[in-house]
């Protein structure tokens, strides 16, 4: 169900690593739980965050969820299209609904993340 080439967190973010850069988004499960997304708050290019720290938030009509960094890094790109069209996050969370791109500070942190299989198991037991 969840794409194989990505890694996942227990906070329902995904991260796709290519070399020393990565793309970050939220999972299908996360957008389902939120409902229709109405607003996304994202950081600026150049902002730096440690792993597990909040880098923004996603709002539906009745709820707000914080976004947590899967790994430490510096923001190199912010998806302005998804900001202007938040429904994209619901329709295409792994593709056009990506949130930020980062330059990874510490590649070793990837070992703490979940594989697609592990994440699938996690959400199966959580539900």
């Amino acid at each position, binding site marked *: 169900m969840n794409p194989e080439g990505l890694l996942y967190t227990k906070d329902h973010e995904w991260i796709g690593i290519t070399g020393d850069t990565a793309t970050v988004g939220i999972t299908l499960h996360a957008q389902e739980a939120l409902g229709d997304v109405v*607003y996304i708050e994202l950081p600026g290019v150049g902002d730096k965050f440690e792993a597990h720290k909040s880098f923004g938030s996603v*709002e*539906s*009509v*009745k*709820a*707000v969820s914080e976004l947590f960094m899967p790994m430490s890094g510096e923001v190199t790109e912010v998806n302005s299209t998804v900001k202007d069209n938040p429904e994209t996050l619901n329709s295409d969370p792994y593709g056009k609904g990506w949130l930020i791109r980062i330059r990874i500070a510490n590649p070793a942190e990837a070992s703490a993340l979940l594989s697609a299989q592990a994440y699938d198991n996690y959400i199966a037991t959580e539900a």
Partner: protein
Amino acid sequence: MRYLPSSEADRKGMLEAIGIESVEQLFAGIPESLRLRRPLDIPPGLTEPELIQFFRGAAGRNATDFTSFLGAGVYRHHIPVVIDALISRSEFYTAYTPYQAEIAQGTLQAIFEFQTYITQLTGLDVANASLYDGSTGLGEAILMAHRITKRNKVFIAKSVHPEYRAVVATYARNIGIEIELIDFTESGRMDYAAIGKAIDETVAAVVVQTPNFFGTVEENSEIASIAHKHGALSIVNVCEAMSLGILKPPQDADIVVGEAQSLGIPMNFGGPHLGFLATREQFVRQMPGRLVGMGEDQKGRRAFVLTLSTREQHIRREKATSNICTNQSLCALMCAIYLATMGPKGLRHTAEQNIQKTHYAAQQIRARTKHSILFSGPRFNEFVIQLKEDYASRAQRFMRSHIIPGLHIARFYPELGNSLLVCVTETTTRDQIDALVKGLE
């Protein structure tokens, strides 16, 4: 008791359905040591005629036959009778907060209209569904500026209403916001040079009131320019919303906040009144209070709904933009009805009479008495007289003639000595003004 509809038989039936003998059993979960085992020591219940008699007596001990020149943040204006007729409809006043949009479109559309009126009066993009009053509104505006700029200092004109400044101090103190007062000049206006000298990049906002506490009309463009040059916001506070019917709305302000009691709401000994807050579109997610938005239902019909609720306490809890829940909804409705009744021309005409009668009063005092009128700046419906002698002796005489000549403001501005803040509105007659002048001769 007459407000409780169930009869003894009804009660018995309900107890049976629950499976108990008496209501007392329902309170078994309260430890005996915490139970009150005596009647409350309050007066015994009164019948309707007795209640009317009691309250008529109490209201009668409030003077209604005095001519009053009091203003200072609470204003006496004509209130069209249609307002009370409409808000006395229980559909409006006994309705709950409009969380369930399908059965609350009356309240929601009326508040949307109120929000629109406020944007028209203030010239800004968006207004909320109301705050408690102008003073807490100003507190909220300052917290908003703090959130937006992430800075901890605020400049406030000393000519902002002293009670408003006191409320701001209470709100600001515990969040580490520092308040610096900027003095006024002989014109009565905020000292622009002083702002320019003191401002730096630690200032979140510069706050001015117009017309200010002394009745002087301020011009915000220069203040805003200084503020913006240093990355601070410009906040303008309005206590006398009637002035917006004829005066240019504050130029270049980022937030216009204040009190709309002048627009259709009785003085009510200080409350309930009506706070409003308007701001630029870019700051909408930092606004406190409720917002009504326009949308559509499932069949594409126009519908109004509370929106952007994720700012608010019931969702964001400790990270909310404010803790406000209940606001002043019925008063906002009263204001919307007032503005619908007056229309732009009626509002302007009323505001004009305020200016003309105030001008007459000031002229007469200058011409016929020895007292001076402080502050040379333009004014709307209030001005300050500096008495040539001690206030106390005059006060007695005025009481005997059933006149309250204004507010003695030494309690707020001891440096202004024996000064009286005088307010003249469209409700004040020429005879009343002449009597005031005579009393001051």
